[in-house]
């Protein structure tokens, strides 16, 4: 520990009392993930009724790699006619073969999907990073293993549903329209499709237009698994395609993950219908760090909370609330830690922070950075190297912000943290709850009773205590207030797919 005083001993970068300075000690050699074996076709059609079919209007749109702005492939644009075809296929499957299969056998199909994903995990991870910009370390170690785990978990529920709903005879809803975002493309697909199939529904899913690649690869996998035609249908396209699904008369349920703004539009367009819906919307998670918290662990937790997946996480810990006595220390440690983050090529195994998902989002985040400065906050960014091409943003933190600042109230969905302070637990809780959102919050303290008290007063669907951004198929996830309706994951996630 005292090595910094002895000149002869080399500087030890792990010393908790020193500034972390990896770069001057070690040079990181590139560690590229070989991506040759992940095949990408020139263009992808729609997956309807077990077949890849051309879009009725013949239109395709390009998908680019956000890390180098090169076109990867093209996806078909599904219009009203295509969506109608997909819904009809799903209806036919629901009323036909899929309903006749016993729950036990239905479960085995889902198990088969889980296994097949595990077998092809690396390929999926590479494609996810290429198409969406997330570091391969995350797609390889978090996204894809979780995808397999979600299918594996829900597969087992298929023939055990009556145990999840005491006093009820669980019945499937029918055709589920599912619309997913671009931040965890395949994982969000798994969150949607696994419980829907386990409960005996059929689905029409639309991936986000910037990240449709793994969903179409998944369609190939569904074919390989021998799932009956029409049980899973994948239609690609932008917002208009999503609207066609939402407004289709023969869809029984809408499951949406995305922004609160679009979620409200969907809730409003379902007005007057009897369609069931679940919404997983935005968030503005706070992390309360008390003076008795293990500070180094907390700093690591904060880094993971806001810079994981470039901050493209609805439950990201984007607001840091530090108890006054330790604020300077925590902020300094955070800045030091920020300096060690490696921003760059998503396919490099050393990369911590990859590319912002799209040009559009890149511009949005940059606008918020400008806005923060205009609002009078102090901006701090690491001075790390950033590639010339592609959409990269340096991990950022803002200090000297107030509760009413827009960068504190609004979801930025990028690697941007705001830092505020509090004196008493009550004040910290008040600030935590003072947004329209209620998805996830964090609390850091060594005192158990404080965790339970603070956790119970935070109005959000997830509380991470002395940790952050952890996910598991057995663990329900979803928001209070304007962060959404309903839960995904765990036993509670089944309720979204059965009749009341």
């Amino acid at each position, binding site marked *: 520990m005292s090595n910094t005083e002895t000149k002869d001993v080399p500087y030890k970068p792990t010393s908790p009392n020193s500034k972390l300075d990896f770069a001057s000690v070690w040079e990181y050699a590139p560690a590229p993930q070989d991506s040759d074996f992940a095949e990408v076709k020139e263009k992808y059609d729609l997956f309807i009724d077990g077949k890849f079919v051309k879009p009725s209007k013949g239109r395709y749109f390009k998908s680019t790699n956000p890390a180098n702005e090169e076109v990867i492939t093209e996806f078909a644009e599904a219009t009203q006619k295509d969506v109608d075809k997909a819904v009809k296929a799903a209806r036919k499957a629901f009323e036909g073969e899929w309903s006749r299969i016993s729950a036990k056998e239905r479960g085995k199909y889902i198990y088969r999907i889980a296994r097949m994903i595990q077998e092809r995990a690396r390929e999926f991870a590479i494609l996810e990073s290429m198409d969406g910009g997330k570091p391969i370390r995350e797609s390889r170690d978090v996204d894809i293993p979780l995808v397999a785990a979600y299918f594996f978990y829900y597969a087992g529920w298929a023939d055990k549903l009556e145990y999840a709903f*005491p006093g009820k005879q669980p019945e499937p809803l029918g055709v589920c329209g599912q619309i997913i975002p671009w931040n965890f493309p395949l994982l969000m697909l798994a969150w949607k499709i696994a419980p829907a199939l386990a409960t005996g529904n059929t689905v029409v899913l639309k991936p986000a237009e910037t990240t449709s690649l793994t969903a179409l690869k998944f369609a190939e996998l569904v074919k390989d698994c021998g799932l009956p035609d029409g049980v899973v249908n994948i239609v690609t396209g932008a917002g208009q395609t999503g609207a066609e699904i939402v407004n289709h008369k023969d869809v029984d349920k809408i499951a949406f993950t995305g922004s609160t703004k679009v979620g*409200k539009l969907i809730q409003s367009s379902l007005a007057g219908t009897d369609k069931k819906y679940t919404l997983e919307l935005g968030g503005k998670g706070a992390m309360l760090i008390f003076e008795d918290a293990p500070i180094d662990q907390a700093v690591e937790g904060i880094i993971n909370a806001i810079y994981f997946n470039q901050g493209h996480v609805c439950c990201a810990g984007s607001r840091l609330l530090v108890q006054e006595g330790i604020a300077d220390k925590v902020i300094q440690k955070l800045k030091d830690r920020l300096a060690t983050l490696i921003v760059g090529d998503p396919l490099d195994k050393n990369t911590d922070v990859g590319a912002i998902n799209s040009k559009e989002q890149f511009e949005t985040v940059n606008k918020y950075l400008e806005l923060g400065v205009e609002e009078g906050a102090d901006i701090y960014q690491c001075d790390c190297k950033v590639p010339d091409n592609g959409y990269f943003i340096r991990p950022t933190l803002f200090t000297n912000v107030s509760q009413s600042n827009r960068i504190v109230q609004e979801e930025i969905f990028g690697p941007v943290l705001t830092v505020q302070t509090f004196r008493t637990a009550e004040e910290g809780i008040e600030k935590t709850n003072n947004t329209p959102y209620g998805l996830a919050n964090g609390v850091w303290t060594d005192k158990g009773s404080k965790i339970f008290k603070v*956790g119970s007063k935070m109005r959000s669907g997830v509380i991470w205590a002395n940790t952050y951004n952890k996910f598991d198929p057995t663990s*329900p996830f979803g928001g209070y207030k304007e962060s959404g309706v309903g839960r995904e994951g*765990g036993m509670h996630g089944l309720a979204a797919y059965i009749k009341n």
Partner: protein
Amino acid sequence: MAEERIDVKKTYKMYIGGNFPRSESGRTYKALDSDGNLLANACQGSRKDFRDAVKIARGAFNGWSSRSAYNRGQILYRIAEMLEDRRDQFMRELGPIGFKTAEAEADINASIDRLIYYAGWTDKYQQVFGSVNPVASSHFNFSMLEPTGVVAAFAPEKSPLLGLVSIISPIIAGGNTCVVLASEEFPLPAISFAEVLNASDVPGGVVNILTGSREELSEHFSSHMDVNAMCYTDELPSDMKKLIDENASLNVKRVVKRMIKDWYHEDSQSPYFVTDFQEVKTTWHPVGF
């Protein structure tokens, strides 16, 4: 000859924050018996009355949701006791609006039993519907139910006592507070039930009861930004249904619709009516030395 005694009639007001105020609007409408005679002038609740009630319900939420499940159970049980005690009052309330004696008795009995049914659920739904989740990483992870918040509800139009009791009970059993619009045609039993609530250790503001018109208030019930859920159990006109859904989207309000025609049917009570107004909260903590 003895002079005929003039009986003293009760003024029916509304129930907000544990008090019985008139509508701030000063408006009333006629509550009639089944022969069309005037029973009383009921308050015609306004937007302002509703907003006042929501503010009070929000203020009462923290305290009520922090009560122990055991305590909430005892208070619901106490409401049942008070209702039992005032059977005669409700016989007099239900008779003139068309309930035959046996029907009124059955309605009161079922209302008392319903309160006890939900009193019993207060400290059990958490055990039945919460979970400990076996996550693969080294964390302790559990999910608990927490009340959604302030609930705005339309009490059933055709079941002025049993229906009212049946929707209030599961909402407050789960720690929510509420603003309820009484049956428009038969508003008086609801206000008498407010007297029962007021005598039953239910903190002021937990249940607020307005009388008035659905047509007028549906817009305000559904659009208020500090209401977390909206609930009804009758078939509504399709334009009102649509309006409620659309307004709900302004703040992602939960809309709970359970169409119930027969409040005696076994399907008209269920722990799922409690969970309709609950949010699942999942907590993670690392496990280690």
